[in-house]
Every structure is written in C-alpha cells, then in structure tokens.
C-alpha cells in the first residue's frame, strides 16, 4: 500500500510517523520529539488515524490511576502504517537519525 495514495507525505507527517515508530506515542511526547509547532501535530495525528495509518488507544487504567491523572491516549502504527514506513524512509532518508531508539519508559503496556 503506497503512502502517497493515503495521504500527502510532507516533512511534518514523516516526522510524526518516525517519532511514533521510535516509541513516542503520546501527543505531547510527539510534539517534544519532533519539535514541530504545537498546533500542527494533532491535526496530523487525526488525519493519519482517519486514513487508517495510525490507531489510537487509551492507556491502561491502572497506570493512570497509580499516577492520579486521567488516562492518556496513545498512537501506534497499523499494519498499513508499518507498510508505509519504507516509503517514508526512502523519501526522507536523513530523518530516522533524528529520533532515538525506542523509549521503553513511555510504553503504555
């Protein structure tokens, strides 16, 4: 499934996808990881979710309760999203180096 058919692969979109693949899964984390302006990240997430590239889920209740805060919503790549990563890397070969390895601290499991 080619990315181009599902969405416009711009630099911010590629950055968001790469950030998620490297483990930054929450909205604010992605903002921090990508350094994109605050107002741009959420619309990208919404669009990718609606196109079936990302899937949003609520984190486990226990974890949120333990920290006495509301449940956060995290985003993960769908199989479609995984498949499109190749094209992302191809189009923006320098980008993956900007993101660190998977950050287990933010793993929602």
């Amino acid at each position: 499934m080619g990315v181009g058919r599902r969405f416009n692969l711009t630099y911010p979109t590629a950055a968001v996808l790469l950030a998620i693949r490297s483990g930054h899964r929450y909205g604010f984390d992605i903002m921090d990881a990508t350094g994109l302006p605050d107002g741009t990240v959420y619309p990208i997430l919404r669009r990718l979710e609606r196109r079936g590239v990302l899937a949003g889920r609520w984190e486990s209740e226990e974890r949120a309760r333990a920290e006495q805060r509301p449940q956060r919503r995290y985003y993960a790549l769908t199989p479609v999203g995984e498949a499109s990563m190749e094209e992302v890397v191809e189009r923006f070969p320098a980008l993956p180096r900007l993101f660190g390895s998977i950050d287990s601290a933010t793993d929602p499991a």
Partner: protein
Amino acid sequence: MTEPAHPHPPGFDLIARAARLVPVHRRDAWRREWEAEVAWAWRRLRRDGPPTTLAVLRLRVRAASCLIDALWEKKETMTMTGLLNDLRHAMRGLIRYPTFTGIAVLTLALGIGANTAVFTLVDGVLLSPLPFDSADELVAIRHSGREGRDQLPMSTGLYLFYREHARSLDEIGLYASTARNLVSDGESERIPIQVVTPGFFRVLRVGAAQGRTFTEDEGVPGGEDVAVISDGLWESRFARDPSILDRSLDLGGRLYRVVGVMPPDFGYPDREARLWIPFPIDPTQAPLAAFGSGGVARLAGGQTVETLDGELRGLIGRLAEYFPDSGAPAFLAEVNLQPRVRPLKEELVGDMSRTLWIILGTVGFVLLIACANVANLLLVRAEGRQRELALRVAVGAGRAQVLRTFMSESAALAGAGTLLGIAIAWIALKLALGAVPADLPRVDEIGLDLRVLSFTGVLAAGCALFFGFFPLLRYGADDLGTQLRDGAAHGSTGGQGRHRLRNGLVVAQMALALVLLVGSGLMLRSFQALRATDPGFQAEGILTARVTVPTAEIEGDEETAAFFRVLREQLAGQPGVESVGLGSAAPLASGLPYYNVTVEDHPREEGELPIFANHNPVSPGYFETLGISLLEGRTFEPGDGASGRRVAVVGRSFAEQWWPDASPIGRRVNAGPGEWFEIVGVVDDVHFQEIGQVSDELVYWPTTQGEAEDPQSTRSMDVLLRTGLDPLTLVPVLRREVQALNPRIPVSNPRTMASVVGAATSRTSFTMSLLGAASGVALLLGLVGIYGVISYVVSQRTREIGVRMALGATAHSVRRMVVRQGLTLAAAGVGLGLIAAGALSSVIASLLYGVSAMDPITYASVAVGLVVVSLAASWIPASRAAGVDPSRALRSE
C-alpha cells in the same frame, strides 16, 4: 505522588471552551485526551518543585493549540457528515423559538403547498403527454371558415378525401358524439355514444381489453351493428359479466352486438364516453360540407404538424379538381375553408392552458412573497444572534461557515415547510378536483406523482437559497468582525443597510400583493359582469330535464309529436307548475344543430354557399317559460307544425341580418323539403352556446318539420318547467308524468336552469376564487411584513423615541412619525405594484369579460385599499411607540 492532582491544571478552561467546537459525537473523547495530556504534563512540571512561570506559560500555550485541533475536527466532520449535523443543530435551534419557526414554516407551507397543488394541475393537464402510444404524433384536424368561424370541424367528405390523398397522414379517424337510450333488464338509460370510424382506434393505438375494436367492413352502410363498451359501463350495467362479448344491446330500439370492452383508463374523445359504435360512411355519398364530426389523425413518420397543415392547405386548394360536380368551387370560395391542424393535446386542453399558467404564475408570486417574509423573519432573528455569530467569526469560523449556519437553518425551514406544504397540496387537490370547471380536460390524469414532487423539491431548494441568502448578505463574516469590534450590542451600527434590505423586501411584497389583488379584482369584476349579463332568458325558478323517445317505443312521428303534446298538457295541469315549454335545446344546456336554412327572398344560386343557422324546434310555451322577450308578432301556439300552420319564429340578429330595414313577419323560410314556413314572430337574442356571447343565426321551428303529409317530429327534447317552488321538487312530478305515458321512456339529467347558468360561469368563478385565495394570502403576508418591520424599527428606536419625548415630542407626533414610515413603504410598494400590474395586464386580458384589463376602478380601489390596511398594520406598533415612557426608555440603556 501523595499530593492530589491539581484541580485546575492550566489550560483546562480553554480546552473546555474549544471542546464546544468539536462535533458532539467526538467531543467527550477529544476533551479527555487533551485534559489527560495537559494533566500529565502538569504533573511532570511539578514533580521537582513549583514550576517556573515560563514553564507554566509554555504549557498554557501548548494547551491553547487544542483550539487548532478542535477547529480541524470541526472542519473535517463538517465535510463528511457536516450537512446532517448542521441540520440537526439548526433544527434544535429552531425548536427553541417555536413562534418564529411556526410562522415561518406555515408561511412557507402555504406558498409551497399552493404551488405544488397548482403545478400538479398544470403538469397533469398541460405538461404530461396524453396516455397514448407515441402521443406526440397525434393531431386533431378541424377547419375554419369565413369570419374565423370555428364551427367546421370535419366532414365525412373531407375525411375520405384526406384519407386518400394526404401523404403526411399515417391514419385518420372520424368521430361524432350522440346519445341513445340503452335498454337492458327493462331499465332505460340515456347514455352518451361515440360514433367512430374503424380507423379511430388504430390512430390512437388502443386495443380492446377484451374482444376487439371495429373492422373496416363494419364501417360502411350495411355493415353489422356492433358496439364496443367502456370498462365503466361494463362494470355499472353488466357487473363485469364475463359473457358480455357477443351479447346484444338495445340502443334506441336497434340491436348492437358487443364485440369488445375497452381498458379501464380509456375515454376518448372525452371521459364521458361509454360506448362506441361504427360510423357508417358511404364513399359515394359523403357530403363535403356536413361538418359535424371530429377528426383525429396520426402523423406519418417524420412529418410534423406544420407539414401536414401545409399539405392539407394544398389539397383543399385542389378540392375543385377532385370534386368538379359537387359545387365545391363555390363552396370553397364562399367559406374560405382552411385546415387547422393542432397537436391533439393542445386541442384537448384548449384555452384552459392560459388560465392554468396564470394561476401558476399567481401562486408563484405568493411563494415569492412568502419567501420575502421568511427572509425578513430570518433577518430579525439573525440580528438577535449577532453576538453568537460574531464569536464564531472570532474563533476562526470563515464566511463559508457562517453561510452554512444560515443555509442549514434555511434548509431546515424549507424542509419542514415542504413537508407541510405537500400535505396542504394533497388536501387542496382532493377538494379542488371536486370543484374544477366541468370543461377542465384530463382531470382524471391528475395526481401527486414523482414529477410533481421533484418540482416541489426544486422549489424548496430555491426557497432555502433565497431566504438563506439575505441574512448572509447582511451578516457575512467580514461584517461580523467589524460589528464585534464596534460593539454590536446596540444593534445600531450597520443598521441603515439592514433596514434598507428589509424595507426593500417589504416593498417587494407589497408590490407583488398589489399585482395579485389587481388580478383577482379584475376577475371579480368579470364574474360580476358575467352574472349581471342578461343572457336573454330568466334562469330562476326553472327545472330542465331531457326526454327522448326511442323509435322502438313510439315509431311514428305523429305519435311522437302527440306524446310530447300530451306530456306538455299533463305537466301544465300539475300543481306548482306555472308554465311548460319543450325545445330541442334549452339555452346553455344542450347543443344546437348548425346547418343551412333557405330564405325565400334570399335565394342561393346553384353552388353558392347556403345560409347557415342554428335550428331549434320548440313547443308552445317555450319562450314564455324561459322569459325570452317577444319583439314582434307572436310565438308558437298549439296547431303550429308541419301539417298544421307552417310557421317559424326567428331571433333578432337573424332578422336584422336578412331584413335590416323591414319586418320579417310574413317572410318565408325552410330547412328541408315541403312548403315554406312563414315567419310569425321575432324574439330577443339569447346567449345560447356561451354565457358571454349572443348567439346570432337562430331560427325556431315548430316541433314537427318536413313535408305536411310526412311531418318529421323532434324526438329528443329539453323539458322546461317554470315554478314558484324549488324547481327540484318537480323532478318526481316530471318522472311520474313521463312514466304514466310510457314507462320505458327515460328522463335524464334533471337540473335547475340556475345551475346550468352556474356551470357556464364556472371557469370564471373557479379562476376568480383561486386568484382571490392567492391574493388574500398575499395581502396577509404583505401586512405581516409591514407590521413586522415597523414593530422592529420601533423596538430599535425606543431609546431615540424616549429622547424625543423627553425633549417635548407629543405622543401624537411620535405616532405620526412611525405611521409615516409604514406608509412610505406601502406607497412605494403600491407604486411599483401598479407599474407591474399594468405591464402584466395583457396576460389576463383574455380571461376578462365586460371589464378592461386596465380598469381604473379596480386599480384605484386596490391601491387605496392596500394603503389603508397598511396604515392599520403600522398603527399598532406606532401606538406602542407613542406609549413609550421616556424615563424608562432612557434608563434601559
């Protein structure tokens, strides 16, 4: 970890506010997600002691970006399910203002309902094709003669001539209407009968549902007497008896074998048709000039009405070559015979189409007025919503979004109005179809169908665009921004333009209402003129019914004449009967035969066109009963007749045409073989065929004509009874007396002469009442418009009025000021309306009778009336303005 979560992390208030922009079904989840992110960030910030102001500000800014996300959500949902959502939202908004919504929906429903109903009529009668195969190939053929005489439809001679020579014709059929007594099971009923050539059914491409139609050899003299019956007759008289085929029917004493039953929806030439018998035409003896039948034909492939008309014109020019010995050249020279080929639909619909288009135009006006009213209401409402709208613009809603808000509201209104309107149309049609004029053709084809509903749909969409557009014009997004900045709360900025728009709408409404009122005023005057027309006879207190003597019952002419004579004498002796008369036709009730009459002192040369006249054989007492004035001489007396005193009476116009300077008394006329009939009397003209028109060329004969030794008696007569009682109470008396003489002779169609006259004015009264209803609604809506605008202006100017009064203005002067404003609007509307009505007057002119389309009395009274009621409509708000308490008005700001 033990410290409780901060009750209000920074930005929660913003999130809550922005959430309102998010579509409802996403709102909760959206808000939870943002709050969770901010709460998490807030925890992290405070994990290592109190956060710095900069960090808090940083979080606040990040939280504020939720507004962008919210707007994105809104935009995205709107493009996907937006319309439905907007509509839902709009409906909720409308339900909250039931009065506004109720008035708007009702106004629209009236307009849309009226248009749907009238369009249904127009569509059924004018637009939809006739229910025949390839109906656009069907044409009607008639002829016109000198002085545009229209009484020359088709003759048997021309039928044969065209059939043989016209190449543009695929097939031609001839039909004539008559009536016979159908006797079955001892019950006699006079039924309408169509005499048709075998080609008639082939032209229409209609076959029998059972059995067959006619064959060629049944259409010549000596052919078998066969009949085809309608589905309705089969049902009513024979209970759908399956063995109907081959049964013999007694029609006026002659037996006809049933060979076919037509399909249920077939009724041509008119829907009264119940039985068809063959038209026997002898090719060797078909008269060229016996114009008494209708012609219907199908065009050959590729031919048009024009080509056929041209061909027939050419053929008629050469008629003399084909019929050298028939007197055709002289006939043609005198009559100036011209074919008139028209599409069959046009022929059937006739001049009803103009009436229908005018009515459709009328209700179109009503809808425009209704829309203008709703637009005005929406403008008022939009004014109350300025703040809400301005806020939307402030948070980034573009012009397009504000447009959607207005449009969805308009669409919701139009939708509700349409549903109610369709219901109104449905009911109106049910009622109206009972009241349409008898001559409205194709009534049975009328109904609410998909075509009509799509018309209504387009109409509704047009309305929604129309009145959704006006508020937008005033409250486009750019404007709103300005208004918010300038403090729109006072509703005073931009007021000038807004008032101009609303004033313009009211002026337009008044102008349209005036046009309609003028139209209905003219129709009312026509109706009055028609009612006031002296038709030449007195209709009140007269009962009429038709009595026909079949040869099977009474064969001889002497006996038939005796039957009618005895019947007249018997009826004259009945209590309550003041006078009795019989005639082959009563005015406006039955048709008169039109053929040649010979006048002794105006002989016609061989081949010269004969003198034509309408012939009406009548009994003694006919003129007296109908109150037709005798101008000279005497009327008929017992003993007048073919074998008695051979005398005749003529109408005034006939007398003036042939003896302009002398008395016709003593002159002699005849309409057939035998000795002359001497004119003994002249009676006043009668409006015989149409209520609005004198029938000239009328000759009255005694009820027996022909030779003295072999008198021909009239067999079918309209009996007229004058009484001081309710005429209908004499119906049983008439039936009883006829039955006493012969129980198998039927009395048909008893009715009062007043109802006959009423039917003759039905089209005018129908048009008048429809126009009247439409203009009534228009007037009401126009007044609501004026009232609304003036009320609103008063409420907006309360403060100003208070100041004026505090400065010494009197209640009187305030009232005058407000009323003047209303009157200015009304006067502008009236002025414009008068111009428009004058321009449109030619449209209605052909429907008028006895009144000019520019009738000054109608125009003046409507204009004055409209100004007066507008005065009343502005008086109420003006009085409210005059009652303003200055101190209160000033404090309220």
